């Protein structure tokens, strides 16, 4: 079973959500919009490179688009192994976290 770090999970969910259009800028914006976290491009690429080395995602260099000073984007796609790992992690999290939100609120987390 492949283990995923929490940041890797976030990045994978962002890639999944974006589908065809998942590359550095869109992944970063998705993470920022949905989690409010500010992440650097560098962190996203290093995480994705690790995942790619484990065969969980694949990448392809796309056609150049405007506004990137001539540098083409690199698109990422989740592989079957990646989807399995992400699903397993998410299910683990749900199984453990189920019904505990109330408790967290009681402890002062809002």
């Amino acid at each position: 079973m492949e283990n995923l770090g929490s940041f890797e999970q976030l990045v994978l969910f962002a890639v999944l959500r974006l589908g065809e259009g998942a590359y550095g800028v869109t992944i970063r914006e998705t993470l920022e919009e949905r989690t409010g976290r500010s992440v650097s491009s560098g962190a996203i690429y290093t995480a994705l490179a690790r995942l790619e080395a484990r065969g969980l995602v694949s990448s392809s260099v796309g056609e150049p688009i405007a506004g990137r000073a001539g540098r083409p984007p690199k698109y990422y796609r989740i592989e079957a192994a990646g989807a399995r790992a992400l699903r397993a992690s998410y299910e683990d999290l749900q199984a453990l976290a189920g019904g505990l939100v109330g408790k967290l609120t009681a402890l002062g987390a809002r």
Partner: protein
Amino acid sequence: VEPSPGRLLRAFACLFIRGPHAPYVLGDLEESLQRDVARGVSVRRARVRFLADTLASGTTLLRDGVRRSESAWPGASWIDVKLGWRLLWKTPVLTAVAMLALAIGIPVGLAPLHVIEAVDSAPPVAHAERILGLRFESIGRGGLPATALDLAVWRESLASFESLGAVRQVQRNVASDAGVGSPVPSAEVTASAFAILGTRPLLGRTLSPPDEVQDAEPVVVLSHGLWQSALDGDAGVVGSTIYIGGAPHTVIGVMPAGFNFPVREQLWLPLRDRPASEPGQGVGLFVFGRLADGVGEQAAEAEVAAVHAGMAARFPEPYGGLRTEVVSLTSLVANFPKGGLAAADGIGPLSLLSVLQLMALALLLVACANVGLLIFARTATRAPELAVRGALGASRTRMVSQIVVEALVLALLAAAVGLLLMDALAGTLLGDRNFKRHFGFYCKVQLAGQRCQRLRRGSRNRSRVGGRVAGDSAWVLNP
């Protein structure tokens, strides 16, 4: 026009972001900037974000590259570091000699800066940079000491200073229990001096204006050191009588440890000078004050110059050929030039500090050159090894970077030893025991450990319950 990060930022990003992901990260940075601007963010703000992301991404990629030992900068790698480490033990004599040279050269190279920093530092009181001294200076023929009359004039006419005070260093005999007197460095100060410095007494009170009256009861404030040594740290010392210069004085307070204003004084007596009728008469004083809120040093200097012009117009003798200089408290008391010891005259345009420092650096350079020669000799003996590697296909860059990294391992290690030695030396030579005896209040040896201690000391607000306070007690400062 399409918004852009600008040539400079773009060049910096290209230099700073390295490694296989660099082109994609750089493209992303450009696109993010475009998107930010399209979203209504100002170009300025977008560029700041560009820079922040450049720094964050660059460091992340670099760290990642190092971790996976596939360096972002071509040529060098972890294996070179390992080889360098192994080489240290393979040529132990060279290692020992090189280490010795650098371990001595580095402390010597750093020593002048350390000494000057230690001597020429502001006293350890709150906002010391706002406490300035006033003195008469003339070009060529030395100054004139300020007197009680000058203090009175300045107090009346200067609005730039919240309050002014004065101090004079004197020697007084303090009689011990056995009746034997010993000379103690003492100071006669105005009551305002304690308020200007902002240091509260550990016990009792400091001097107050009524103490300055000519025939008032003789009183004294003791230093922590004198309290401990001469009075054995007696908690009930306030109100007792000690003999100073043969005359009984009532102890009214004890200052916290480390307070030895102005330099290394042990007791403080009220300054009871009456302004003389003629300017230039009377005993010399160090006059200083705390700048009033919102007044800068330049504004104070302008006002002081104006007041001096008035004094010189009324009394051409002695003020005519002089000017009033506004200097730091350290420069005033230690008689350093305006701008501190660093501004002291040396050779030509070089200050004394730079001459000393250059000499020390030359010595370090000699040590470095010797180590360089040794490493060169070591490399020369490895010609066969390098020839084989070249024949096997190693590039010139690869081999050169290996040699550089190997030398760097040795140098870093030697530098670490040198710095530790410096730390230990400065601790003993400039630390509490010897150096402080001479430079007392002003000595501030800035070393890692002691700096931490200072910070801790600052954050801890010590209670002053009970008489005896552990030897190294806290500074009790006004908020």
